[in-house]
């Protein structure tokens, strides 16, 4: 009679014990491959600086060209480039994990909060060791960029590529509307007027086919409109979002665009080119929106996606009385995380990128920042430009951007550690206003209240950790 055991005899016998052991041994060999990688880089006697950056495609290639130039120009340091997405978050996690990169490419708006979080290594002592005072170092930049890289009286980064935002308009659409294509609006009133004249509807369905201007395109810096109107978001001590009346004016202006055109119509109109700003279908490039505020990089994208576009670039119209050449300035920056193993060498590269060959007359003679910025089609943050960069710049409209960068009315993100949250709250308020879900007063009031609480909490936290609350910015050139 078959026992229970034989009745369930397996079809496939399991590997014998020795076989299993061999398998395990083989796999642990494989596991060795998956273990901690050899520390440091290849053995070539040089110091390897790990550099994390957010750029891929042509921007990444530009930086890699500069890195090659730097590596060639000396034989002590080699910079290793690693493109990384979500770089701000990854860098924090790596720094907390004790294994940060030596150099990281952040945005200027990260600096305040990262510096407060003690994630970055200040650069002041490096500057001094090179024989300069921080003031002298900062004086080389345009004021708005010099301010951007400081926080709490210390310098935390160098600039890799700066940007200023200018006013772009579609000359073909201007002509069609009977406007002079070479005369952009010079005041806010003119902008509003032009926007109305450049908005067209489909006679059959009533749907919007073209808009003169829409504040949410591209919608990355809606808060700049508050500053443009003469308002302030932060006065150095307190949140002033709802207390400064100019901010409210700006929000009313934003609301006006939806009110004048109908919320549903605008919704349908904007959902078409959803998130596709770097493509031929982008609203400005495809002729859907006639006027837009965009950055110095935009000319390159237009050349790539819509080379036949007839457009103009100029300064911002004047909104606040007497404030000429207002603009938004931003920058990608290079910072050294706290605990980086090769901080000094990383500083050498920052220095390289933040200097230029002031006598360059040909493209081959470009060095450092100007080489990078010319490849990425951006301007240089330094006051002094080489003859080549100034007169033969590959960017067709660089003069406009330089003029704006040098302007005393150029503004950047507020120097406040809770900027990430402030920015999200502002976007939320902006969304509510432009979708007509709340009045400007309600939206700003709500955001103001949340941010005031958040700022108080932040200050308390800094006190708790023995860091004094941030003082007024020092080293102002």
């Amino acid at each position, binding site marked *: 009679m078959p026992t229970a055991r034989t009745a369930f005899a397996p079809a496939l016998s399991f590997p014998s014990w020795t076989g299993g052991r061999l398998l395990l041994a083989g796999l642990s060999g494989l596991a060795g491959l998956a273990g901690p990688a050899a520390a440091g880089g290849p053995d070539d006697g040089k110091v390897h600086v790990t550099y994390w950056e957010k750029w891929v495609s042509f921007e990444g290639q530009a930086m890699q060209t500069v890195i090659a130039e730097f590596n060639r120009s000396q034989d002590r340091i080699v910079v290793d480039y690693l493109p990384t997405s979500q770089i701000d978050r990854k860098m924090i996690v790596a720094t907390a994990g004790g294994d940060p990169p030596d150099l990281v490419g952040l945005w200027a708006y990260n600096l305040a909060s990262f510096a407060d979080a003690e994630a970055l290594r200040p650069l002041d002592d490096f500057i001094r060791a090179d024989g300069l005072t921080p003031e002298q170092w900062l004086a080389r930049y345009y004021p708005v960029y010099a301010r951007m890289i400081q926080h709490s009286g210390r310098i935390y980064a160098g600039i890799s590529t700066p940007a200023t935002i200018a006013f772009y308009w579609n000359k073909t659409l201007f002509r069609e509307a009977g406007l002079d294509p070479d005369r952009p609006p010079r005041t806010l009133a003119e902008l509003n007027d032009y926007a109305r004249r450049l908005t067209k509807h489909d006679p059959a369905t009533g749907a919007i086919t073209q808009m003169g201007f829409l504040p949410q395109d591209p919608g990355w810096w809606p808060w700049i409109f508050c500053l443009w109107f003469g308002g302030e978001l932060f006065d150095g001590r307190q949140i002033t979002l709802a207390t400064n009346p100019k901010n409210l004016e700006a929000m009313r202006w934003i609301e006006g665009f939806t009110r004048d055109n109908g919320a549903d119509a605008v919704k349908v109109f904007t959902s078409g080119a*959803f998130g596709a700003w770097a493509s031929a279908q982008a609203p400005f490039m495809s002729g859907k929106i006639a006027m837009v505020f965009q950055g110095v990089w935009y000319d390159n994208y237009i050349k790539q996606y819509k080379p036949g576009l007839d457009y103009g670039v100029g300064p911002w119209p004047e909104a606040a009385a007497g404030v000429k050449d207002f603009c938004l300035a931003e920058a990608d920056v290079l910072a050294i995380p706290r605990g980086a193993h090769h901080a000094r060498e990383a500083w050498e590269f920052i220095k390289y990128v933040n200097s230029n060959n002031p006598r360059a007359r040909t493209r081959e003679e470009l060095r450092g920042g100007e080489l990078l910025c010319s490849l990425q089609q951006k301007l240089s943050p330094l006051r002094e430009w080489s003859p080549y960069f100034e007169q033969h710049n590959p960017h067709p409209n660089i003069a406009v951007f330089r003029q704006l960068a040098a302007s005393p009315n150029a503004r950047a993100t507020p120097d406040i550690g809770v900027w*990430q949250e402030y920015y999200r709250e502002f976007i939320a308020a902006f969304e509510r206003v432009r979708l007509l879900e709340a009045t400007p007063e309600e939206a700003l009031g709500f955001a103001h209240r949340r941010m005031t609480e958040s700022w108080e909490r932040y200050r308390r936290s800094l006190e708790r950790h023995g860091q004094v609350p941030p003082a007024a910015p020092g080293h102002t050139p």
Partner: protein
Amino acid sequence: MNARDRRKFFAGVAFTSPWIVGLAVFTLYPVLASLFYSFCDYSILKSPVWIGLENYQQLFRDELFWKSLRNTLFYAALSVPLGTVVALSLAFLLHRQVRARGVFRTIFYLPSIVPMVASAMLWLWIFNGQYGLLNAALRPLLAPFGVTPPAWLADPTWAKPALIIMSLWGTGNAMVIYLAGLQNVPRELYEAAEIDGATGWRRFWHITLPMISPVIYFNVIMGLISALQIFTQAFIMSEAANGNGGGSDGNPGRSTLFYSIYLFSTAFYDLRMGYASAMAYVLFVVIALLTWLASRLARDHVNYQS
């Protein structure tokens, strides 16, 4: 314990020892550490400072906490039942001897193994308000009624439903488990019922459903736990829509600000790990509560064979 029981005890512990280590190191320690952090002001780069209940007090006053909780519960309340119905229906359709069953099963399972980055981007385009595939199909269907399809991810009212539809596409996992459960229903029961003259519907209601109720219960619980933690799709789609900035915020209008996304923002963009840990604990309690509720319901309706 006598000697024999002690031997058994050691054998038991010996066999479960890998799990004892794993549980202690990878689950219990983090759970306790998180509890500690939730009472601290902790920003991952500076050492934690004890602040007692302050995080929890702030949490219950925080409008975004409530909003994200509401968004998440809405999503779970719709996606779990709908997902169950879809997965069950597909399992039924495939349970019979249908031609090319293997091909169909693969097609239905496929979506759950597509990398989230790719499928999120894919659906971003399908949901495009003006030119997306979905609206291209819906527009002619709705036109006779004078209705236009919504702008989906650009409209605060329709963004969550869009994500729910996307989740239905990924029910292949649950479907496979239901298929397995259906296989377990003994044929004899069906045959006996047929002999007794029961119709298809009665067979379904009185045999199939009770027999697979444990599987349904299991899937619903796992589905609920997973739906309450929804993160990746909403994060990628919201980020793609808004470009760089202060992290995704569930726009438009924070309608897709789910609990895990707000938690993530607070932890990694505002660098407030203590607050995020408090949020994580509250989520834990919510999950435990809902699971317990579901178990109470199950006791009356779920049928275990022994």
